[in-house]
């Protein structure tokens, strides 16, 4: 990790001792951005976006449901990516990053299911149906729980990282299944809110509110993942000299 070669200088950040302070510096910026974007998103979502023609005010659940669902998938991909990098290159910080993302991903998957349920009840007349979209999102939630349980069950951190990485990588196939489920199967769930090929069917202000909230959730996820990875680094590197110095300075 200490090469003088400038081409590999970015690799310095793969070392816990250099990543820990960097994460600490970045974290408040992401937290601040999350707060600002949330204020803007809530303002547009509640005071600018109009009432929906068919769903009345009930549609406003979209401003948390879609961002939570997107983030549950984005975080899973990020988790699998860092776990895979850790598996391939044996970089400890990447594996720790994967572990730091998992609880937040699980939380967003749960929020996606919960807000979806609260939306389904008034609009479809049911809290839950076993259709493709809902079931594949539930599987995503279980994949997160499986990752967390597996890592918690294995004492040796290196073996826990490797086992978690294999599970995370295998589970990636579920993400496109969730995304395309509304196209592939007949489902009660409505189609994609935003499509790459068609212009959005919703009012522009609704779209903006949703995008701002999605960005806010994204910044929040980065902020908490950085805070958690710092805790994981402290825990795992507790016997290192630099941790001693960092703790004394804090």
């Amino acid at each position, binding site marked *: 990790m200490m090469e003088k070669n400038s081409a590999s200088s970015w690799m310095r950040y793969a070392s816990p001792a250099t990543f820990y302070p960097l994460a600490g510096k970045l974290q408040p910026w992401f937290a601040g951005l999350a707060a600002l974007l949330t204020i803007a998103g809530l303002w547009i979502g509640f005071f600018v976006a109009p009432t929906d023609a068919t769903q009345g*005010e009930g549609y406003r659940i979209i401003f948390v449901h879609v961002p939570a669902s997107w983030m549950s998938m984005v975080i899973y991909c990020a988790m699998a990516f860092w776990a895979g990098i850790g598996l391939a290159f044996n970089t400890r910080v990447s594996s720790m990053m994967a572990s730091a993302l998992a609880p*937040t991903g699980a939380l967003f998957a749960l929020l996606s299911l919960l*807000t979806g349920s*609260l939306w389904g009840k008034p609009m479809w007349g049911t809290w839950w149906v076993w259709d493709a979209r809902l079931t594949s999102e539930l599987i995503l939630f279980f994949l997160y729980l499986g990752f967390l349980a597996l890592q918690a069950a294995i004492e040796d951190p290196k073996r826990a990282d490797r086992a978690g990485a294999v599970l995370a990588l295998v589970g990636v196939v579920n993400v496109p299944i969730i995304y395309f489920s509304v196209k592939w199967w007949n489902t009660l769930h409505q189609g994609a809110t935003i499509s790459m090929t068609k212009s959005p069917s919703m009012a522009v202000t609704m779209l903006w509110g949703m995008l701002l909230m999605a960005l806010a959730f994204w910044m929040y996820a980065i902020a*908490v993942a950085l805070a958690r990875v*710092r805790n994981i680094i402290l825990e795992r590197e507790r016997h290192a000299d630099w941790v001693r110095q960092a703790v*004394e300075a804090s």
Partner: protein
Amino acid sequence: MQWNSVGDFFAMGGYAFYVWGSFGACALAMLVESLLLRQQRRELLRSLKDQHEA
């Protein structure tokens, strides 16, 4: 703006339970997660200080 009064806003056109339940759950989850992380960090720093002094 489509709200005529504060009560109108909180009533959410009859969907108050579902809309506020959704937003409340998200706010609560994020608040609890942030507080837990902060507490975990405090405990870690304390235990590391004890370890180093020992």
